[in-house]
């Protein structure tokens, strides 16, 4: 029987299809790995209900494990508990920033996260806090569009949910 931790280690290299600098594990999409004899069950959870990347992630998981000789793989989509940006690791937040995406800056335990303006948001390029929201909705469901008023660059902000 394969160790679930070993499977988790194998899967930790799978990148998010839309933000390839971070893995599905760092993003908190990979929730659980269970092994019963030959049967391997993987739980994943969507960031947003309509996240179009979930199918791709499922296929990536199945084909990577097939390559390693594991054939009985089942991928479950689970909804509870609902995904939150709190699950993104600190290391991954730094990778997002370097990639040009401002990471979610605070914990969702703070009420008003969804509706309030991010307080300490800074430009991932020059670090300026002199930024302005262009649109609540960005290039993917999980991002909003901002611009920096100092270096004038537009950038994506990973919304806090």
């Amino acid at each position, binding site marked *: 029987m394969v160790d679930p931790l070993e499977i988790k280690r194998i899967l930790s290299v799978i990148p998010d299809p839309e933000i390839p600098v971070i893995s599905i594990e760092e993003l908190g999409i990979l929730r659980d790995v269970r092994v019963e004899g030959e049967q391997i069950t993987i739980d994943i959870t969507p960031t947003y209900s309509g996240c179009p990347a979930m199918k791709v992630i499922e296929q990536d998981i199945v084909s990577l494990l097939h390559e390693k000789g594991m054939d009985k793989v089942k991928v479950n989509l689970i*909804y*509870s*508990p609902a995904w939150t940006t709190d699950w993104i690791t600190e290391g991954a937040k730094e990778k997002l920033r370097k990639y040009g995406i401002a990471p979610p800056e605070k914990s969702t335990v703070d009420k008003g996260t969804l509706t309030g303006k991010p307080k300490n948001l800074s430009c991932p390029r020059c670090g300026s806090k002199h930024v302005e929201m262009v649109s609540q*909705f960005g290039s993917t*469901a999980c991002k909003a569009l901002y611009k920096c008023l100092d270096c004038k660059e537009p950038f994506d902000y990973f919304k806090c949910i």
Partner: protein
Amino acid sequence: MANKAALFNYILRLADTNLVLGHRLSEWSGHAPYLEEDIALTNIALDLIGQANSLLIYAAKVEGKGRTEDDLAYMRNEREYYNSLLSEQPNGDFAQTIVRQFLSDNFDVLLYESLSKSTDETLAALAAKGLKEATYHLRHSRAWVERLGDGTEESHNRTQNALNQLWRFTADMFAMNPDDKDLVKAGIATDLEKMQPTWLKNVEQIFVKANLTIPANAWQQSGSREAKHSELLGFLLAEMQHLHRTYPEAKW
């Protein structure tokens, strides 16, 4: 355990309203007033269609007759659809789309807040997820209602006109089936009649702020609970279902 058929119908109602409204919003793709708004409306459409997808998967499981979520979405006709009448109303001008969305987002936030405490674990999980999205959608539609209603004479008139057109479909959102009483008693469903006054208070507060007036004594159209729709839904489904019905085995 509550009646399976009643639960199936209840989930269909939630799913169909999201699916139809999501499809309506997707019609703006490539046509919205400017790029950021195009992206916003299609993002919201994607969330709603995603919510519908999860709900239809659950509905198919509850029904237990081997139908899939795609069968439910693409192979039912308009007299088998239980979406709210509001959701099928045409996009009209931008003001009409925004007012329809605002009325609907306010409804969704309250509904999901309540359903996230449902004794049905799957519904509770989907609602908790949907609540985050609906809250974010409401922030968008509310900002637009305030901006348009309290904007220029033209934007005000168009928004007031949209409210006059759409208000007659609002009571239908809160209509309940006789079976719902059992679902409410079992802690599964939300008591919509009890929810309505809060919804009214919430939307009224913003309309007042936006200098808009809810039409007084407006006649209310109903029918969605019996799957009775306007001809609008037939056209919408024809477009949405055409590809799947032409190539039922197509996969991509």
